[in-house]
């Protein structure tokens, strides 16, 4: 739930999603759901020479389970807030 919330705060920011098939796609984060499925707008595939397959794709839905990394805009991530929220969530987990 925590990570889902983090992604929600990053909507409309540019992110780079690296998939488990080594494809990297940069785009504007339009939405995310609880499975961490991601919708990107205005996409650009890294290394278009090698991956011309998505040339005509303007926006896409990426299945959360195939994501390896998401590179986030560091200036839009409040690390202190993240750590506090993580501790809070961890505390809730052990209470249960």
């Amino acid at each position, binding site marked *: 739930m925590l990570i889902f919330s983090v992604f929600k705060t990053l909507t409309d920011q540019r992110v780079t999603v690296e998939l488990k098939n080594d494809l990297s796609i940069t785009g504007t984060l339009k939405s995310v759901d609880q499975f961490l*499925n991601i919708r990107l707008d205005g996409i650009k595939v890294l290394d278009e020479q090698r991956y011309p397959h998505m040339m*005509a794709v303007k926006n896409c839905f990426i299945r959360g389970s195939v994501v390896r990394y998401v590179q986030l805009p560091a200036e839009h991530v409040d690390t202190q807030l993240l750590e506090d929220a993580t501790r809070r969530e961890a505390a809730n987990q052990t209470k249960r």
Partner: protein
Amino acid sequence: MSSLQGYVDRPVLLVLQDGRAIVGTMAGFDQKSNVVLSDSKERVYSADEGVEEIPLGLYLVKGDQIVLIGELDEEKDRSVDLSTIRADPIPPIHY
């Protein structure tokens, strides 16, 4: 659900776990991201030949086989001469 609603009736490209690329019109989907494509074709990429299109017709793709669904810019897609494209297939997903 980061909804697929916006893709219904639109031309889309599906990339599957095994690296296949399928284009078609999104006819429908459900909450497991199972997808029905109408008038679909597989695009077979190869490094030493142009792209071959294999007609598949009405196609149901299971959600867990899907890597991504992209909305195609029809004009841009039409402007590409697939016979001139040389590229290896998209690599399969390995966990």
